[in-house]
């Protein structure tokens, strides 16, 4: 039996309108919003980027719109995508290929594939073969974090993207422009941080699906528009009369690339878990704190990535601290337990798991793990697992 995951009750008023807007954006796999944005000015260009992180400031500074390509979720019927990938490869690339070969990514003038895993890496080459007329670039993030080595290499990578986008838009990326873009995204960072803060404090005000939709909207809207939307949402929910439930507080790790379907988030919440921290759409807050908007902006972006980004499986843990950071974060957000949920066949997430598990075991923090895919449609097992986990914590404080 499929556990139907009913929609949240329709909300009226401004809050309802904000959520409807974010839902429309999420469901818009033809990227109409991007086409509308481009239609307003013929110099506008859209650059699609794959998970996990790219410095969107650079695209913005060249007058481009960075657009997150996060797969087709559970809304894309895979007709041709499966014939490009063997059964033992995760789902995200097949839905991305499906979108590409069916013309739904035509709104993009270029594509960036950040260096997170071999699948995304090879997908960049597939795009080069399938879309020979588009700008396709594998964006190599540094795994050496010294300013004079990784920092220098990374600054050059960013500059090469800036030049490519500037060639399309005709707007050269000057240091001033880039500093302005950093400021624009810093405002966005603050808005997202305030939303997260509120969710940690009062998770009943922000259902997981709404929170998720707000983040995803940022992957389609221009940055300042998104900032305004998030700020308004955060304000509106505080004025709502949503009441707390007897849910446990959990943290999610492992969902940094292929995204869980909305219905899965709803299932977890209905099973008694407030998601107070997670790594969904992690690129939107990969660098959680504001970036320096004075001095050399390239260096500032590089320094932020190398020294202040969130720990993620695709970045080398040079200081051997992922376990400690995880445990510390659990304490900071006052989580009762952790859900290690990883996409099936996702090497980075699944290879990370044993390390995260031993850190949690050592710290006596309850956890449970399961796999999903972006088009998971059966939720019964996960609902039972999450429900049992929540009940055990409620009863005994441990799973």
């Amino acid at each position, binding site marked *: 039996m499929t556990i139907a995951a009913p929609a949240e009750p329709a909300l009226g008023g401004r809050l309802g309108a904000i959520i409807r807007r974010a839902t429309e954006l999420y469901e818009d796999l033809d990227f109409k919003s991007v086409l509308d944005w481009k239609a307003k000015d013929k110099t506008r260009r859209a650059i699609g980027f794959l998970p996990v992180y790219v410095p969107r400031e650079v695209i913005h500074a060249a007058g481009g719109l960075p657009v997150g390509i996060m797969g087709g979720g559970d809304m894309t019927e895979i007709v041709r995508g499966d014939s490009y*990938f063997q059964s033992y490869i995760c789902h995200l690339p097949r839905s991305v290929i499906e979108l590409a070969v069916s013309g739904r990514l035509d709104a993009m003038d270029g594509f960036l594939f950040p260096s997170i895993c071999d699948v995304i890496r090879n997908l*960049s080459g597939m795009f080069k073969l399938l879309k020979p007329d588009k700008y396709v670039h594998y964006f190599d993030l540094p795994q050496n974090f010294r300013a004079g080595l990784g920092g220098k290499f990374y600054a050059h990578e960013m500059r090469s993207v800036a030049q490519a986008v500037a060639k399309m838009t005709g707007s050269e990326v000057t240091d001033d422009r880039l500093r302005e873009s950093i400021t624009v995204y810093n405002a966005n960072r603050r808005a997202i941080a305030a939303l997260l803060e509120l969710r940690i404090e009062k998770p009943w005000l922000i259902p997981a699906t709404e929170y998720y939709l707000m983040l995803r909207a940022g992957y389609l809207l221009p940055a300042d528009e998104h900032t305004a939307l998030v700020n308004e949402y955060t304000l509106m929910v505080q004025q709502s009369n949503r009441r707390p439930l007897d849910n446990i507080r959990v943290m999610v790790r492992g969902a940094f690339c292929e995204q869980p379907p909305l219905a899965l988030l709803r299932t977890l919440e209905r099973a008694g878990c407030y998601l107070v921290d997670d790594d969904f759409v992690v690129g939107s807050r990969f660098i959680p704190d504001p970036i320096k908007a004075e001095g050399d902006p390239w260096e500032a972006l590089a320094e932020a990535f190398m020294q202040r980004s969130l720990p993620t*499986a695709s970045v080398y843990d040079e200081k051997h601290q992922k376990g400690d950071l995880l445990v510390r974060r659990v304490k900071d957000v006052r989580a009762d337990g952790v859900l290690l949920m990883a996409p099936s066949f996702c090497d980075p997430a699944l290879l990370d*798991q044993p390390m995260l598990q031993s850190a949690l075991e050592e710290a006596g923090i309850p956890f449970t793990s399961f796999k999903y895919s972006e088009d998971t449609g059966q939720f019964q097992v996960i609902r039972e697992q999450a429900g049992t986990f929540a009940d055990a914590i409620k009863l005994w404080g441990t799973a």
Partner: protein
Amino acid sequence: MTTAAKKDASQERQKTMIAEHFEKLGHAKENKQKVVYTFVPGNLTELLANFDLLPVLPEINALQSGMRGKTGDYIHLAEKSGHSEDVCTYVKADIGMLKSGNIGPTGEKIPEPDLLLLSYTGCFTFLKWFELLREEYDCPVVMLHVPYQGDGNITPEMRQYVAGQIREVLIPELEKLSGKKFDEDRLREDLKRSAKAEDDLVWVLESAKHKPSPIDAYFGGVYYIGPIFTSFRGTQDAVEYYELLRGEIEERIKLGLGPVTPDGVMNEEKYRIVVEGPPNWTSFREFWKMFYDEGAVVVASSYTKVGGLYDRGFRHNPDEPIETLADYSMGCYTNLNLPDRVNLLENYVRDYDADGFLINSVKSCNSFSAGQLLILRELEKRTGRAGGFIESDLVDPRYFSAANIKNRLESYFQMIEAKKAKG
């Protein structure tokens, strides 16, 4: 289809070299020799030798365990201790071997590492692999980030980045570990020897252009590249091994002989194939037999280029000792982007006058496998020759279905026949 087996002198020589290496490893701790674990693609063998450090290559351990039929248990052990069934089985075979006492192929215990040298070429799993090993061993890790040839070239910035890491990060760490100063002159001498061995290796690989081919460049090829991979590049031993091998193959060409197989010399060459992807190790002989029994010889393969694309011109260059190590790391097959992989395979099909190409898609390895179905289509389109696709795994016996693979191969060879008949 074959005549009696007889071991060549080069094979004996190689066996001795490997045995001596494991012997050294077996006594490393008592001889106070430091041991460095590192990976095959883009390996820095000459640099490690510069500090008299002994390399251990966990991938080679995994494949050797696979050949000895141990990996089924090792993988099971790793999965029981929380490793996912979905991930690369090399990692799990290694973790399982560690948990079973780390006994190497010669029965001696492989010493624990004094350093994990994470030279990060062409595969993200390497990163996780050593993060996982770091949990088990109390030793430092040093990372060499090797950028990918995403746009199909090595830019000056990439070169500077890698050379900079070798100079500023690796060498100081290796000096600290070994207590020895870096000796650039010695490195130059070793690199000269590397280049010499590489010349002969290329000659050997290219001998497959002859008809009949005197070598099998995939199943046999893994033996030819073995010594260079496993720690001997830059040594006089490696130079001599390749001279010996070259001499033997010159002789085979003179006599018009086909490749040596485990069942002797292959007599009739019926099909010439290019293969993409790693082989299966758990049923290596059985797999190979499915080819030579049908008279199929592999004339070129991408797998034998994981340790360098020497046949496309690269040689270690003693005049630029550090930069050449950087170029080498970035130039391996697994560091090529997909369009360049297709170009290379296309050229192999033409240069070696192959009847077709075959992809062995291994479940473990996203680095190789993701995108292979598009490679297949592109190659079919560009060459018009027969393309085949089979699936197996490197060291997980659960994913080697002999009957299934045999069936597929038989229909594949029939497809070649049909194409040949059409002209």
